[in-house]
């Protein structure tokens, strides 16, 4: 019983965390994927989500490899791609990736 309640609470916490991220200024969307690129959660529409996940996931894997190759004790902490229109931020752990698109100049 309590285990179920715990998971519910955790579930809520996940929701809360995602909501909080979304309400920040300029955040356009959040995508959560696995390492292979499978989309688990997304706040963007059905066209952009697979695009983002399939393009960004291999890029993140590659950059992780680069950091490791340069120094085997180092590891990738965060990946940010700044483009003219927005910034793509990628945070990852061993199993999941979180991708956030933000445009800080949103008027």
């Amino acid at each position, binding site marked *: 019983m309590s285990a179920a309640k715990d998971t519910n609470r955790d579930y809520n916490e996940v929701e809360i965390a995602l909501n909080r991220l979304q309400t*920040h200024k300029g955040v356009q969307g959040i995508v959560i994927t696995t390492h292979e690129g*499978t989309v*688990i*959660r997304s706040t963007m529409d059905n066209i952009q989500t697979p695009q983002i996940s399939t393009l960004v996931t291999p890029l993140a894997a590659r950059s992780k490899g680069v950091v490791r190759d340069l120094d085997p004790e180092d590891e990738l902490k965060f990946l940010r791609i700044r483009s003219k229109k927005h910034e793509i*931020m990628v945070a990852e752990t061993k199993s999941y990736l979180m991708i956030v698109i933000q445009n800080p100049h949103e008027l």
Partner: protein
Amino acid sequence: MEIVYVYQKKRREFGKQAMLSDRPADIGLSIPPDPSYLKNYTERNPSHTEAQCCPDKSEHEVNTDSYVLTNRGILHTQGGWPKDVDATDVEHTIRFRKKIEKDEEYMRVIKHLGDCMEHTIKQNNAIDIYQEYFQEAPETHVSDAPSAKSLNVYRDPNSIKRAATYLSWYPEEGHKIAVAYSVLQFQGMPSNMSLDSYIWDVENPNAPDQTLTPTSPIVCIKYNPKDPHILVGGSYNGLLSYWDTRKGSFPVDTSPLEKSHRDPVYNVAWVQSKSGCEFFSVSTDGQALWWDIRKLSEPTETMMIDPEKNGNIVGGTVLDFETTMPTKFMIGGENGATFMCNKKAKTPGDKITHVYPGHHGPVYALQRNPFFLKNFLTVGDWKAQIWSEDIRSPIMSTKYSMSYLTDGCWSPTRPSVFFTAKMDGSFDIWDYIFKQVEPTHTVQVCNSPLHSIKAQEHGRLIAASARDGSMTLFELSEGLAKLQNNEKKIFSEMLERELKREKTLESAVREKRIKAAQKRPNSAFMPTGQALEELLKASEDDFYSYIDDGDGKLRDEAMARIAEYEKPTSS
């Protein structure tokens, strides 16, 4: 002398394996030396021979075929599903997702990542590290030397090279250039010459982007500024065709032979109209024809270039049309004069409103200054001239250059910069507020004469096309493309000053002429015959009445004396 060796073999021994064995040599034929041959030869002394002790080598050349590389992209839309999940089945995917979301590890991870991400998001919102400071600061004066750097050369891919006679930039962005290829020398076209003209993509000089196939080589070509897919081309046999780049390489429509020009069409220009489909063309047969591309079966209007109004037709070589002045247009003629014409004239005689004579040879380029519409540039013979609409003589002209000028154009971004293309294969950049005596910069493009030079709308790129079929793209230095401080003001002052000077000169000449006519009015009226006799008698009477003191005898005495003088001759 034939040397023959004969041997016999029994037939049943044919086909047997050959048994080889040694046997001593025996002389088959002996040819002794014949000293009489020595007479055919003389001894060579000294005799030089070369010998080298090294292995024999031979040289081979190999050229690999070049590979054509193109860039392509792939868009991967979905992927990464584990084996047991069927990606097409929505139920499966939803179930998979739900399963993961229930996973504890997932929740922990998301929380952790969420914190991490939030930190950076806040960072982004706090300070923009990419902010450009001092964006509004005025640009410091760019003092780099004027230069033009060649970026790319686009060569005619056919083996028989034709001259690139005209080029037109794609409107607005200017990432494509349409080039018309033809051979303008009379009867200079070999029969197997390709008739095609090409559209080149600026990035790719290896192969043309699109081909346009007319029935006769195109002499001039222009993009429609309103619709960049439409191009109109005038061909060597006087026909006009229009192409739609979306519809392939053959013209969508062509004008009929009877209604078109009888000489190559040297220039076409698009006209401001509601439909954006009208253009007009000019040719050395002396006609200017207006067409609508929707109905190329006959011209909508025709005009004969007849400045003297007496039937002597002048061939036209260039056109200019300014969209802000839709009823007026200009034609440059073969006799060196430029004609300002009014489209709305009632009678054909009124069509030509002004004539600006000035060049010794055909006018090869004519363009209004994009900033000061009343002034225009003409290029012909060995110099370029700047005119104002009001005066019949040029207000400014460059000095005679060493080689014949073939084309010219204004810079679209700087009012006082213009370019002229020359027969020796170079083009000049004139910055008129900086130096009027000579070009600010000269760029040698190639060894064959340049036919056409056109600037791209943003002012930075120039394309020049030459007689050997090559087209070169240049990038100008920033100083030549960007509008300088006060440039408009300075140039307009210069133009006004020159205009005033010409006007004053003209009025001074006129006054002088009038005065000279007034000074001797009688010399213009010489009476003859009876009027002369009466005039003489009247002046004689006046004379005698003045010197007479009253008795009237003086006149008779004078007459008697005259008679006496004349008498001795008769006796």
